[in-house]
């Protein structure tokens, strides 16, 4: 039996706003945001305890160098995920990233080996990467699901790599590749400097410009973005070009690090790149893909591989632990997301 109570009658008329000055924030509780960072910290502490080499400065540089390729390719993937949205089948994804990393590295190596100067070889390699990006962009804008378009173009790019090299690695040495591998700028290794510059540019573009805001809008609700006057298709097309360009750049770094254009090496990278970009969600309060989050994730994955090698755990465990850790982190994000959706 509920008795009707007299309601406190506001004096204003029916046109008064519901008196609620600031809405309660229904977002994720703040402590959950730290779960991702906690996992990263736990990992660092664990490896430091297990291996005295792990927490040294020189090892940190190694991790950064290894993480640079992953992070740069990951930034590209992040841009695609942001602009294309996160729908399972129709959302943005670039499965050709791995193949493009391989292709660009191999093209540069083959050209250099044939005596072409680096001034020509590197831009040509990036141009080849952009061609793949343009194919992706065109296919996606025409209406092919990104998953499929990039799957197919990636298959084409990897087989071009094989055709170019006949599946034999192409050694490179000296010149720009030597500098990228061994050079340094104010005491920092060249590849780390490249990473820092690329990070600064993409993080600013995505996180603090009009372009970034519109890219996020295009990904979250393309109709809304179009209604607001954002040329969604142009943003989507651009994202695949950016992704291919960054993958191409990552490929050059990788070729420098390995001192050779190695066919097939990029394909192994693809999963790590996808995980890196997807995992960045965990490091964001809005539960969206971010560039800083991608950087953190890339270092997380690189440190994991590095740490396992240092504590002498067999390589077959790396995949398993990576998988489990990633599941944990992604599961946290999933649970968190559900709590947001009431």
């Amino acid at each position, binding site marked *: 039996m509920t008795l009707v109570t007299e309601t406190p009658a506001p004096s204003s008329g029916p046109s008064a706003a519901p008196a609620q000055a600031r809405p309660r924030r229904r977002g994720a509780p703040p402590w959950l945001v730290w779960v991702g960072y906690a996992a990263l910290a736990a990992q660092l502490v664990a490896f430091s305890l297990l291996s005295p080499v792990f927490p040294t400065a020189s090892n940190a540089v190694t991790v950064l160098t290894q993480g640079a390729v992953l992070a740069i390719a990951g930034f590209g993937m992040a841009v695609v995920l942001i602009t294309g949205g996160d729908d399972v089948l129709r959302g943005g994804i670039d499965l050709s990233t791995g193949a493009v990393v391989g292709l660009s590295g191999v093209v540069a190596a083959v050209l250099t080996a044939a005596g072409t100067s680096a001034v020509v070889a590197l831009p040509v390699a990036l141009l080849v990467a952009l061609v793949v990006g343009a194919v992706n962009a065109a296919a996606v804008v025409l209406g092919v699901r990104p998953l499929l378009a990039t799957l197919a173009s990636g298959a084409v790019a990897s087989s071009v790599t094989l055709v170019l090299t006949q599946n034999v690695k192409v050694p490179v040495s000296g010149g720009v590749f030597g500098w990228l591998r061994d050079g340094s700028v104010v005491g920092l290794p060249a590849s780390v400097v490249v990473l820092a510059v690329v990070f600064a540019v993409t993080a600013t573009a995505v996180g603090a410009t009009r372009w970034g805001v519109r890219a996020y809008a295009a990904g979250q609700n393309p109709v809304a973005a179009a209604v607001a006057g954002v040329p969604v298709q142009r943003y989507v097309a651009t994202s695949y070009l950016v992704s291919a360009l960054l993958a191409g750049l990552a490929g050059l770094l990788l070729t420098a690090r390995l001192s050779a254009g190695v066919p097939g090496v990029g394909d192994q990278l693809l*999963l790590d790149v996808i995980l890196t970009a997807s995992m960045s969600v965990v490091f964001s309060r809005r539960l969206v893909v971010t560039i800083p989050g991608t950087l953190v994730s890339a270092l997380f994955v690189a440190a994991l591989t590095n740490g396992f090698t240092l504590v002498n755990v067999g390589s*077959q465990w790396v995949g398993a632990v990576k998988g489990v850790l990633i599941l944990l982190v992604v599961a946290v994000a999933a649970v968190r997301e559900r709590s947001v959706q009431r």
Partner: protein
Amino acid sequence: MTATTERPAGGAAPAGARPGAERHRKRLRPAQLLAPLSLAAIVVTFGVLSENFLTGSNLQVVLASSALLALAAVAMTVVVRAGGIDLSVGVAVDLGAYGAAALVAAGYVPWVAVVGGLLCALVVGAVNAVLVTVVGIRPFLATLAVWLIGSSAQQLLTGGGAPIYLSRGETPDGFRVLGGGQVLGLDVPVAAALVGALVVAAVLGGTVWGRVLTAAGDQPSATRIAGGAAGSTVASAYLLAALVAGLAGVLLASKSSGFVPFSGQLYVLDAIGAVFIGATLSRTGRTSVVGSLVGVLIFTLLSNGMNLVALSAFWQDLARGLVLLAVLVAAAVLARRAR
């Protein structure tokens, strides 16, 4: 800004004033003809290029080589129909093969090996089901993680990736017949693929489970509100997919007399390609078993034909990639024009 306009004719047409609606709807869209036409084009091209292509014996070779991919694609069809995607289908194939091969090597009778292999594969499906429906991870990421973990698991199970070989002598005939025998004039794997495809097609199209699965794949909340058991149905889709993939794995173990780690991974991307080529057969882009089989045939005939005209493996990959890309782009362009 055409891309943002939503189905103009639907909502805006005057109600009651569409006598042509019935005919308009039944009319085939050009995009729906694309996959069959590509198939025909491949048959004609290689029929002209190689006199061995259109022979009975070559047809048998094609069928035999498409059987396992067909099963993987059927498995993928179920999951995509349920609104997901299964990147771990290769792991299910591998674990199915591993389970069967290991049990035969340990001297168990064939049926135990078969059941054991299927159970191993089901573990993969169960993990996927839990991750996707209970934990709520997006299928792409969940099955990607399972792919990673499954790959490591294979290395751990085989001591770093060493293959298991089943010598002729110690393999019971009952197990060998699965990969090499014949029933009703068909290779056993081909017959198994046909039966598997038929059963899955019947279950998807003719049962309440299939109806709920399809609806849940499109709109989970609408399905739940309509009284359907969306969660458990989607979960069972991952189990069914793993079971079908596991069957492919068991057949693979018998066919290749053992287990080579990661051999199932080869099927993943082709299966995805085949399923989505097949989806162009439907007016709403829905995946179907028949469509997926058409996609599988396109891939296998293409490989077979290129083998016959002695194209190198690298160029073959290139050609397959280009064909996939061309079909997908053409389908998209046609679908867009029909709008």
